[in-house]
């Protein structure tokens, strides 16, 4: 933090001639010139769509308006009132939040446990595990989804085959993704955890390598238990890493779209199998109601900000120092 102030001041402190007008003005303008590219592309690629989205959420923008027959009218909060009275929407929202919390926390727990495991095992085992995690991490979403749909295939999927080898279990022809929504989301959750654990594990492991071995050893000699060492020495060091990966996973898991869409491609398409992403898509794009879709997106945006509020607030405080 201190570097921020020092980088600007030293030339002046050392009495060099930077006090002349042009260079002072340049120093004041410099940061703005540096961010202008990023700001412009963000305004174009994100700002404009968000503003459009907000405006549209207050409009009646259905099939008629989309085909150009009629200009969209402003209808105030009608779209928001409509979605507030939509029972399916609330069911989908509840399901999405639950899915997001369970999946994100499970990802973090498994990821941190694997990172701790990496610090405790033989180098060869660690290397093998890291390679395996890298393979999963680097898989493009589409490729990974296609493979998992093949693994869980009811007739010839290897999951059913392997489970059926357990004595007394017969899973032949069992339909994982089409039987109940609960099972569908368990499968979706497993796939997402498989994809996102490597990122968490590597980040946590990199954080763990910053824990001082000497301090750990000293505390061990002093009689601290493994739990105590984790709580008082290891955890404080990796806490910032865990905070940011938890936040990112919450955000990603709340708006999962590609995974659910592709699973639905291979299975049931009813709204019982929807999360917010797919429900918005069905309402806004497939259902031709841009207005309602936009209102739902704004709602999801607010929900995301609520979920991450503590992190953002602490960040603002820290940056403001």
């Amino acid at each position: 933090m201190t570097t921020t102030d020092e980088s600007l001041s030293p030339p002046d402190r050392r009495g060099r001639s930077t006090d002349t007008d042009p260079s002072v003005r340049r120093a004041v303008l410099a940061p703005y010139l540096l961010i202008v590219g990023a700001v412009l592309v963000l305004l174009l690629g994100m700002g404009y769509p968000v503003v459009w989205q907000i405006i549209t959420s207050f409009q009646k923008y259905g099939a008629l308006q989309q085909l150009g027959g009629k200009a969209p009218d402003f209808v105030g909060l009608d779209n928001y009132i409509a979605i507030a009275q939509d029972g399916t929407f609330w069911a989908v929202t509840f399901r999405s939040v639950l899915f997001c919390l369970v999946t994100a926390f499970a990802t973090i727990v498994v990821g941190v446990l694997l990172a701790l495991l990496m610090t405790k095992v033989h180098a060869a085992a660690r290397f093998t595990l890291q390679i395996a995690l890298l393979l999963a991490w680097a898989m493009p979403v589409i490729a990974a989804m296609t493979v998992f749909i093949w693994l869980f295939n009811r007739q010839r999927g290897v999951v059913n085959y392997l489970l059926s080898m357990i004595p007394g279990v017969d899973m032949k022809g069992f339909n994982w993704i089409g039987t109940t929504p609960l099972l569908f989301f368990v499968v979706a959750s497993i796939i997402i955890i498989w994809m996102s654990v490597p990122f968490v594990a590597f980040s946590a492991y990199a954080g763990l390598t910053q824990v001082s071995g000497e301090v750990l050893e000293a505390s061990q000699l002093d009689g601290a238990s493994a739990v105590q060492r984790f709580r008082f020495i290891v955890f404080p060091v990796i806490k910032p890493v865990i905070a940011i990966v938890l936040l990112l996973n919450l955000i990603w898991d709340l708006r999962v779209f590609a995974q659910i869409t592709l699973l639905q491609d291979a299975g049931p398409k009813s709204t019982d199998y929807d999360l917010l992403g797919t429900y918005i898509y069905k309402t806004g794009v497939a259902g031709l109601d841009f207005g309602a879709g936009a209102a739902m997106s704004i709602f999801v945006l607010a929900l995301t900000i609520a979920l991450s509020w503590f992190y953002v607030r602490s960040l603002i405080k820290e940056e403001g120092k």
Partner: protein
Amino acid sequence: MTVTATRPAVVKSAGRVAVSADGSRIPIRRRKLRLGTLLLSILALFIAVVWAFPVYWMVNSSMLSTATLESSTPTFFPVGGSLSNFERVLTPSFFSALAVSVGVTLLSVAVCLTFAFLASIAISRFKFRGRVSFIVTILLIQMLPAEGLFIAQYKMMASFGLLSNVLGLSILYVAAVVPFTIWMLRGFVAGVPAELEEAGMIDGLSRTQAFVRITLPLLAPGLVASGVFAFLQCWNEFTVALVIMENNRTLPLWLRGFVQQSATQAIDWGQVMAASTIVAIPVIIFFVIVQGRMTSGLVAGAVKG
């Protein structure tokens, strides 16, 4: 810092006497530890096998004939397998999708890195009005639900005449990836002490010269790390491309088209897995080579802030 702060608490619960008084305990402890390490190593290897299995299964299936895949018993090793699925999959449509993906990705990564690099310098080396708002905004932008924005993005690109256009898709990719790239890079910039630059300036370099000759080389690993991250995001992106690129498909769309095409008939899993392998393997190899830098970059961003 936190480590030293918590240390007294641990020292208080010390059992120093037990260890220093009874030297014979230490070897026993060590042997126990070694057995523990062995058991944990076996566990780690088991987890590795389970975790890598889907990727193995993709490659394995891609080399098997349709008849073998249709049998009721899975074939676990591609004995007698062939590469004929790959031959059937490498059609002109693959190469045109490859060209689109390469074009979009290179353009997006180059522009994204340039913008993000400059912005990260601004937020970690300058204090300016609006700095905190800028940082919070780039954090918030990452939370925008993409599936809510693509209707607007589609309408925007249609009005610019940039639908199915590499430039149009690149603009959206840069906007989507630039926030996280700034986030990663600022950790690296903060990790290079400004004092080094000052020393260079005392030695007579100008501010710009000091930056280019001293700071920039130290930032190279960070640029590589964030470049890889941006590359993967653009290369693997699916949703926005699905909406914007109606008749100029990227590789992920090509892969989905494969599954869809097969959906009308019985799915030819051998071909589907060969297509998945072609899309995934180059990414995996590239990624395995450079990942260490990426993770350390992320941690730098989170820890050093």
